[in-house]
């Protein structure tokens, strides 16, 4: 018995070692965050075209992944990094993480997404962080859904909102930036005190906010900070096909924050040619059209075709709250610390 046990263990170890043998074709390595996904078909097309084996390293959530890319700059683990958003962009650029690349594909990309004039960080996709509401709750209680930030401090909406902590969650940070964009540097804390007085619930992560506290999922709060894309996804991933949406995103002016995700060629790569090809590929309609169903984000390339459910049920805000990247760079830490000392005292 004992011998067999040991044999099984040894076999296990051998298997692990066997898996790490490198193949002969050239390898392109993409470092990214945990939410990254891509269709089998789409990646196969790229691998075939360039006769390359694409490896992905998923190294934690967006913030942690970026930290790891920065800390491994001396001995880069990958050729391309994907998944730094506009709230973290300054950290990547200040550290000199990326090499510039003037991709010919950038011509097709609207300038509102191109935040780095030197083209070190290339915009790939975007998503809006918006309030989501549980439609059934508002119908049952004959209440108008909120359509501005001010509504949320109205006593009529007392005890209805759950948000994420900006110190630990990326949609939480986006919502904090929404309030800063709308009320400005000098008044956002007053607004948050109003939210507190109106019994806002703050949790540390999106999963808890959405699946535990949001009333659609067994909680008691019918308003949650989530993504503009969440309502169509509720439909796509429903247990049984749905004819009508059960949640909706609030897209009134100044109530959403637009996250733009970037990719970049890691400084010092030995596969610059392949890395360039990969960036071009990420901007191509093939990859861009694959984005929404895989990652819940939307293409920056307007020529990419969207799935029907999106076209019908996706609400895109006309005017998201604006905070300039320079402002985020300069004040991110101060805003967070001030928020923490007032709200979490």
């Amino acid at each position, binding site marked *: 018995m004992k011998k067999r046990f040991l044999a099984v263990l040894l076999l296990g170890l051998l298997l*692990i070692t066997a898996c790490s043998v490198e193949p002969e074709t050239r390898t392109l390595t993409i470092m990214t965050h945990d939410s990254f996904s891509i269709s089998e078909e789409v990646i196969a097309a790229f691998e075939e075209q360039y006769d390359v084996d694409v490896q992905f390293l998923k190294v934690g959530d967006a913030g942690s992944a970026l*930290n790891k890319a920065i800390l491994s700059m001396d001995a880069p683990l990958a050729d391309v990094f994907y998944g730094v958003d506009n709230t973290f962009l300054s950290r990547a650029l200040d550290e000199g993480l990326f090499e510039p690349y003037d991709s010919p594909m950038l011509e097709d990309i609207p300038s509102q997404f191109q935040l780095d004039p030197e083209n070190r960080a290339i915009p790939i996709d975007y998503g809006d962080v918006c309030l989501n509401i549980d439609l059934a709750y508002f119908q049952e209680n004959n209440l108008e859904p909120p359509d501005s930030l001010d509504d949320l401090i109205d006593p009529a909406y007392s005890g209805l909102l759950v948000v994420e902590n900006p*110190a630990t969650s990326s949609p939480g940070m986006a919502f904090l930036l929404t309030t800063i964009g709308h009320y400005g540097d000098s008044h956002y804390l007053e607004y948050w005190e109003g939210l507190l007085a109106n019994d806002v619930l703050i949790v540390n992560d999106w999963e808890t906010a959405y699946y*535990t506290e949001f009333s659609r999922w067994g909680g008691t709060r019918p308003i949650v900070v989530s993504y503009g894309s969440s309502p169509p996804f509720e439909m796509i991933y429903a247990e049984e096909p749905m004819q009508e949406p059960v949640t909706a995103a609030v897209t009134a002016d100044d109530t959403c924050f637009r996250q733009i995700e970037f990719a970049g060629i890691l400084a010092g790569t030995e596969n610059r040619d392949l890395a360039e090809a990969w960036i071009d590929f990420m901007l191509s309609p093939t990859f861009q059209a694959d984005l929404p169903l895989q990652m819940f984000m939307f293409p920056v390339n307007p020529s990419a075709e969207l799935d029907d459910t999106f076209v019908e049920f996706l609400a895109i805000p006309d005017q998201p709250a604006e905070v300039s990247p320079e402002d985020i760079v300069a004040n991110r830490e101060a805003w967070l610390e001030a928020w923490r000392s007032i709200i979490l005292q």
Partner: protein
Amino acid sequence: MNLSARSPRSRFRAGSLLLWAGPLLFLLLLYVFPLGSILKVGFSRAGEDAAAPLLQAWTSPITRRALWFTIWQAGLSTLLTLLLGLPGAYLFARFTFRGKRLLQALAGIPFVMPTLVVAAAFQSLLGPRGWVNLGLMNLMDVSAPPIQFSQTLGAILIAHVFYNTTIVLRTVGDFWARLDPDLTAAARSLGASAWQAATRITLPLLFPAILTAALLVFIFDFSSFGVILILGGPTFTTLEVEIFYQTTSLFNLPLAAALSVMQLVFNLALTILYTRLSNRISRPLSFRSKEITQRPLRGWGQRLAAGVAIIVIFSLLLTPLAALAVRSVTRLEPERGETRVDRGFTLDFYRALNDDARQSAFYGPPSEAIGTSLTYAAATVLLSLLLGLPAAWALAHDSDALLSRIFDPLIMLPMGTSAVTLGLGFIVALSGPPFHLSTSPLLIPFAHTLVAFPFTVRSLTPALRSIEPRLRQAAAMLGASPLKVIRYVDLPLIGRAMLVAATFAFTISLGEFGATAVIARPEYATIPIAIYRFLGQPGAMNYGQALALSTILMLVCGGGLLAIERLRIADIGEW
């Protein structure tokens, strides 16, 4: 009294170095080097005054509050865990009853469950629309839920007890099971009351095991991250949460490094205290086999008491798990206009696990995740026993040697070190040549072993220490070679302890998420990682599949624990 037995100490010293070689090399490569590297990076980013972040950490009111709360909640959690675990340990140690093995395996399952899932399970029981509150609201005829659970200190404490009771059951229960009941019987026959026998005989003899369990539980609670973050909410901050915030959100590496040092210093002080204390109170005992120490429950009184104890312990440990399992086979979507969430049985979520609806390049059927998880777990068991046995041996038989005195407290440190910091350390130290380890799948069982190793050493040392030296001397005198002494005297006596060690290594690896997340490659997703992937996306099918996978994780864990018991590496020639 045991000094004479240890007289040939000088001969042991060279051997001691040999015994330490493996574990030391491992700790140097996977702990000291990565941690040192990341701390160096952190402090060097502070600019000219490298001491400034330390000063800042020490004087900031937020950090002080975090440190105080970390200690306080860990202490309270440990106390409660002991309170619930010790009666259970007694029951498992001294009695035989039907279903005991199963209960023991079940008690180990909470240990591997991902926090997000556990939080959801508790919420479905104790949340504002949970079963308990709905029941109470009906019963008391009130409209507001009477129990407030999430974001309370109570939630943190209950979750810690839920996770760690198994540590007490295993560590203390195993030791207790081998204690000679004749000792208490003798005391009783000489006129001691049951109370006197318990406090004067049993408790002092048990104390090393209780102390070990308390230390392990305390360190786990001390560096607790998920429970505080998810169940505690933003108003509770521990050092670990603060390190995470400073690192990920603010990229303030100097301050994060300073906080990690703070955590280290505290843990080190604690373990030094522990080793001093446990060296003083451990004594050789003659262990008895279970056939002698355990008896069936007799009479209604005993049966009733045992029944109550089992119900109390297991209602806390198992109801959340049961709630999870039930939800994984229940339709989740509420009907339009209905607030009731549960309606009807379904296996859709389990079916969906095998169906790659998104055609994602990272899709793998659940069988693959189970295979990956089990492979890592098996490798972790093997590695941590291989490294833990020699280290425990050196500690037990040569505890006065300089090496042992130095390394004894150091062994525990990896457990109490910030996973965020150490994860970055792996990247900084092990990425480049010559190791290229940070993206290798080998790093995963290595990282798991780092956490499991202190457990194996701590489970094995008390058992090894309490072997009567006379037994080994007698065997040697009768002509047994040193190897034969080990094979026929030591191994059988520590068999149970090896089983406990293997169990810990298995569960730690199966449930580990922090270190795995740091280094995981999508091709090698473990079950917990696959669960988090589903939970990160909106929609009933995603949530349902996360629940289904969590239930599978429970089954795999329970099955694995029962199988380890079956393998009986423990009972080699038990007598």
